[in-house]
């Protein structure tokens, strides 16, 4: 009895959290609804508000503090090391996408940057004209023809969808560093890597998020559209040639990468 009651309440809540479908007699409204692909919009907007509050209270101040305290060359070195550590995941996804050329580039960069680049601190390969790229399992699934599913806004992680969320989990599980060694030192190193990744990603996003938050009449709608466009560009491997400071390849916050300099 109690179970059915709970079920009914859940069903009601879920129904209440769905966006209203437009009048089917208005084909343009239906087309727009389908293009937005956001049936959970009311719930997503609540998540966005939660995310925004956490971000303004914790993540953004941490990122600004990091930018203030750590000089730019050191931040760049940290970004290089983090990107180099992500090589196994990128390589695996290059291969799963059947892209031998990009897999070869990933492997070559790893060997050069880990040795001549002193454990990945310097991006020697980029200076040689071989810039890096990122891949994740969400992109691999897209290449395999898996649809993205409905738009989701996840507090702390940011804009996403079921495909990309699942991809993030697979990438985490596939990362050999997740399982490497044990003990206090290894734990400390893993926490350091995670912590640095979070501040590094958020620091790179300052230039993106601040103008949208200040300038957009509806930041949620802007982020939703920007995320989808960035992801589609990444899936087609149309990443910017140089200065890709917007993407640290951690999987977190990716696709926020809209720079918005002119709007």
């Amino acid at each position, binding site marked *: 009895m109690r179970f059915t009651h709970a079920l009914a309440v859940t069903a009601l809540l879920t129904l209440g959290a769905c966006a209203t479908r437009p009048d089917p007699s208005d084909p343009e409204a239906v087309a727009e609804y389908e293009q937005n692909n956001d049936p959970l919009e009311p719930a997503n907007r609540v998540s966005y508000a939660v995310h925004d509050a956490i971000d303004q209270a914790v993540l953004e101040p941490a990122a600004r503090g990091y930018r203030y305290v750590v000089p730019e060359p050191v931040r760049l070195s940290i970004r290089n090391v983090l990107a180099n550590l992500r090589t196994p995941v990128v390589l695996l996804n290059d291969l799963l996408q059947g892209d031998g050329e990009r897999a070869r580039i990933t492997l070559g960069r790893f060997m050069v940057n880990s040795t001549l680049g002193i454990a990945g601190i310097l991006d020697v390969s980029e200076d040689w004209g071989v810039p890096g790229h990122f891949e994740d399992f969400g992109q691999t699934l897209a290449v395999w023809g898996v649809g993205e599913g409905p738009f989701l806004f996840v507090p702390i992680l940011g804009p996403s969808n079921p495909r990309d969320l699942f991809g993030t989990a697979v990438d985490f599980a596939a990362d050999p560093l997740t399982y490497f060694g044990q003990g206090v030192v290894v734990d400390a190193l893993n926490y350091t890597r995670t912590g640095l990744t979070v501040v590094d990603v958020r620091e790179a996003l300052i230039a993106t998020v601040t103008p949208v938050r200040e300038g957009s009449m509806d930041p949620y709608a*802007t982020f*939703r559209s920007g995320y989808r*466009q960035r992801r*589609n*560009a990444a899936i087609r491997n149309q990443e910017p040639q140089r200065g890709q400071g917007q993407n640290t390849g951690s999987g977190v916050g990716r696709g926020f990468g*809209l720079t918005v*300099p002119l*709007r």
Partner: protein
Amino acid sequence: MTTLRRNLVLGAAGLGLCTAISPAQAEIDPARATAFIESAGRDLVAQLNSTAGTATQRRERVAAVLRRAIDIEGTGRFILGRYWRQASEAEQRQYLQLFDEIIIRNLSARFGEYQGVRFTVGRTQQRSEEDVLVTTQVDRPNSASFALDWRVAEVGGQPKVVDVIAEGTSMRLTTRSEYSSVIQRNGGQVSALLTAMQQQIAQLAAREGR
């Protein structure tokens, strides 16, 4: 990207092009588009880096360059999409006027950030019969360079910018999403968007005054 999604996006863009941009659009020569971006970009950078005159005079000079280079009416109509036809004639006029001011104020509110800006034109690709994508790289002192792509089409016999793509994100599509969301969340009223646009301009003007 799945084919379906690509078709949807292309279809949406195509629909927008047909309904929004004046039928005067014709085939464009990539070399002409590149030369146009080079010259418009040079003019813009010169105005951004010149500190002569008052803030209003500088804004007017930048505005003149932008109005020459951008197809403000076509882009504005594309962004308003299906709501263009729902709007009254007076609303359409007011919308285009506000849209023009937002484009200009967005740049003039950030003059400080653009001191010392430089740009280099990269490759040019023919995207369709009607438009060409010119890639540029923008460098500012003390910040990471970024890629900015310009979609150029022939409008009324002149090459004009019809979209700006920053790191893979089309301003035209992002703004369309933003504007339509504002209208939808305010009972489908175009007038609500116009009010929000006026507020946005006031905010940008206040920022410029700082």
